[in-house]
């Protein structure tokens, strides 16, 4: 379990990193390394060059930017969990990140890394989609902003170009009465979920005005269930109806710990679990 040969480049600044990445199709970005390094060691991935962006200053900034909460790509999960601005503006983030692996991994793993990697079982891509976040990428032609729902194409597949690097994520600030609620079901604490749900809710428990449901660990990317959300809004929680709706809306893909049937069931009960967390 030793990585194949690669060259290593410690990027001095963003432009430096972009330049190398643009010129070498098989180079990859190294940020926290929590997904990349195991893949290298198991020789599942053999890039020519690792471009280490972890020393680039300023990329871990967390701030309010206009009507958004901006989280810099290099902010680690621990940074984000412990940040006051995040806590005040996006209180769900702590609960979500608490479920991302374990402290040692959260101390190294980065926000941008998780967003860019696009693991369908990860929490953050689903959060980005559920909150209508913008993913800011930087490339040879400057910056562009991609809406999270357009960013994820499929299994570990995103719209990011070879010359581009994720530099930060802009989460729209919550409006009055808006809440992000979350739950997931996993075999062990910190594992990838068998199914998870992030709900973007407007209203209160007894008076939900708008509802967006985004599932993770269910298919090949964050799964948006608008039809089911509407059904839930109109009829309230009805297990059979919602299950039936989800089965037509999401292409559940089973894995080692849960069959597609299990995921469908869990996704359905997660709606109940998540809505029960709302205040009356």
């Amino acid at each position, binding site marked *: *379990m*030793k*990585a*194949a*040969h690669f060259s290593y480049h410690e990027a001095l600044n963003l432009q430096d990193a972009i330049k190398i990445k643009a010129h070498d199709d098989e180079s990859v970005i190294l940020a926290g390394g929590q997904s990349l390094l195991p893949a290298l060691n*198991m*020789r599942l991935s053999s890039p020519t060059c690792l471009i280490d962006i972890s020393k680039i200053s300023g990329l871990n900034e967390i701030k309010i930017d206009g009507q958004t909460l901006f989280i810099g790509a290099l902010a680690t999960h621990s940074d984000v969990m412990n940040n006051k601005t995040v806590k005040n503006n996006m209180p769900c983030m702590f609960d979500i990140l608490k479920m991302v692996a*374990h402290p040692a991994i959260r101390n190294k793993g980065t926000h941008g890394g998780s967003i860019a990697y696009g693991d369908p079982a990860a929490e953050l891509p689903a959060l980005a989609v559920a909150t209508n976040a913008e993913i800011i990428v930087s490339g040879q032609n400057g910056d562009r902003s991609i809406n999270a729902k357009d960013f994820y194409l499929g299994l570990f597949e995103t719209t990011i170009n070879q010359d581009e690097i994720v530099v930060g994520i802009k989460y729209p600030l919550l409006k009055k009465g808006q809440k992000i609620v979350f739950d997931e*079901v996993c*075999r*062990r*604490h*910190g*594992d*990838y979920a*068998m199914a998870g749900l992030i709900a973007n809710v407007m209203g209160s428990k007894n008076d939900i005005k708008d509802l967006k449901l985004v599932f993770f660990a269910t298919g090949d990317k964050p799964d948006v269930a608008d039809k089911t959300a509407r059904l839930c809004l109109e009829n309230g929680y009805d297990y059979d109806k919602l299950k039936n709706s989800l089965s037509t809306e999401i292409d559940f893909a089973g894995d*080692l*710990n*849960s*069959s597609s*049937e*299990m995921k*469908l*069931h*869990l996704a359905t*009960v997660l709606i*109940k*679990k998540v809505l029960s967390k709302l205040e009356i």
Partner: protein
Amino acid sequence: MDDIKVNQNPKLGSLDRPNSYIGRSLPRENAKKHLDGGGQFVDDLTLPRMVHVAFLRSPFAHAEIKSINTNDAKKSDGVVDVFTAKEIDEVCKPWIGTLGHLGEMRSPEQTPLAKKIARWQGEPVAVVIADSRAQAEDALELIEVDWAEKEAQVDMETALDSNAVVIHPELGNNLFWTRTVNQGDVEKAFKKADAVVEATLDFARHTGVTLESRGIVADWNKAENKMTIYHNGQAPHMMQHIIAKHLDLNEGLVRIVSRDVGGSFGIKVHVYPDEMAVTAISKKIGRPVKFIADRLESFTTDIHARCHKISGKLGVDKNGKILAMEIDDLSGIGPFSMYPRTSAIETNQVLNLSGAPYVIPNYKAVGTVVFQNKTPMCQYRAVGHPIAVAITEALIDKAAYKIDMDIDKIRKINFIPDNAYPNKCPSGVPLEDLSHEASMDKLLEIMDIKEIEAQNEEDFKKGVLTGHGVISMCEVTNPSPLFYGVGGAHISSQDGASIRLEGSGAIHLSSSITEQGQGTEAIMKQIAADQLGVKMESVRVTLGDTDATPYGGGTWASRGAGIGGEAVLKAARKLKDNILNIAAAIMQTDKDTLDIEDNNVIRKNGGEGITLQKLAETVYYRGHELPKGTNAELLATASFLIEGIPFVFTNSAMGCQVSIDQDTGIIKINKFWAVEDCGTQINPKLVEEQIRGGVIQGIGGALFEECVYDNQGNMQNATMADYLVPMAYEMPDIIVDHVTTNSGRSIIGAKGAGEAGTGGAPAVIMNAVNNALKQVNAEVVSQPITPEKILKALGKI
């Protein structure tokens, strides 16, 4: 914590004397070393001219190797050589994993590297020797193998069918071993029974997952004809014999060094093909060779265990008295029986141990062990216990439910009474010094069953399924020669200890028992210091080096304290006797008036004594001052083995309460209780660590761990992310208590304590889950009990 209440063994002397260390929870010195990063594991070792290896392993469960081309690999950077079976077989003779004492076993010859046919995914096929492991792995990618994939026999349940793939055609079919035990007349007894219950349980394969993976450095010294092996194993003298035998070396010139070992659990007591290849390579190229298994290799080549399907039947009368029990067990062990202990022992233990705590006058057990194209299976912590205990205790709960009797009551009326030992298991295996009645009483006392039942009911009203269980079990520890030696294996059942007083006054102890993280060194030190009358810090211990320790079996089957500890006790008493004889001569008094306390020879009636240092100085440097003819030996050696009984059994009672989320199928263990009777506890804290650690491994088996295979025989979850072991978050509070019934086989009275947790937890968790599910007429019969299995049982999916 300094608890001496637990030492209730009069043979060990009074408890209020100085240097009374046996029975105290003293801190272990070597824990500090490990916390400080100061341990020395095999991978910490770098020898001059050392090379590294990487194995090309079969990607298929069953395939013909039509040809192997290593030319490009040999030219790769840093590569010293590339070997296939042809080169390795020139220096290493094949082995056969059978023994002679358990009836006919059939397993073919096995060689370090597969020849012509690979029979499991992960079997080594070729090996690259290079300056670094990374370079060796680079070259692996350049080896060209012309594979012809064959159909694999993956499922053990079809392995004996007429259309099964026969893995070793020369054997005619896939049967490795079978045994039938028949005591009394079960057929007749079942007819008389008022209630007969049946169950079929299945247990997934799992593995040991040691923190430190398997590792070996082999160093052949041509000039001295000496082979030195640094190995993280459990039985150095067994390995010494095996390596000498198969590499045709002088056994006396093979040295095995096993320094710090990061967990073993039985995984590291077997002979592995890749490790044998490493020793052969060193012999062939005359350089030190290192192999450290990576985690993927651990999962696909460390032995697996517990792949069983067992059916059982229990008959009781209307008063709950057991009349008969019958079991039929099937196990699949991979393509070879492991060497030298064989892969029959787990099934054998299932047959021996089922029903062991109870009076069962009629008992029949059939065990069948078959070959299949998966990783070889063999003995892992609590060998066979989880299966034997789970089937027994599941049947007893079912019988209790059927005749409407409390689960503790049905057990109590069927126990072999505590005052009825020596006695026998239903299978006929002798038992002595056990305390099922007292242990169950203590368990019920610490559990507070009434409160638990009330909580179960309250939870049910809230829609949560909560249930509990209690079980009893026997634990095989301290084996005698009847375990392996009688069958022809060169595995010592005797262990030795050697203890000396040095010129400085320091005490040096060496023992053939080994340390793998459980605290062996600490308890050996406690016994030696206690029996000799010296401070703990004046004793240093050497373990795990065949050049430096007495000959013996090593640490496995919970034999360290009971066998190795007794040898230390005997050696320390001998040395004390020698010291007092010398002191009597120096002090010109009667030996009986003297004793040793705090490193001084004292006069029991007062008056000036002599320090051990002064005494040693006199002996070593001024021997002429001693009266002529004084036997001035400051070195004593003793040995011990269990005689007259196959094993010294320990017993245990366990209870737990679980809650099940009906929506998600997630099981939460609310609390776990264990009462263990392992006789004298040398260090109660270390005993409790054994129980707790064992319970955690048992939780793994019950709820999480499974080597998942697809139907082509590919292991699907060979990473720590996908193979689930319980982590801190999944560990419940485990309350441990004790009953003490000393073993009459030794002075020290200690029995083993390492197996019970792992052996009993799966049974009590499954019973508690089924107790909870019973409220909605559901049941699970398969381990690990996954959320999906729960939801299926509940009819949710």
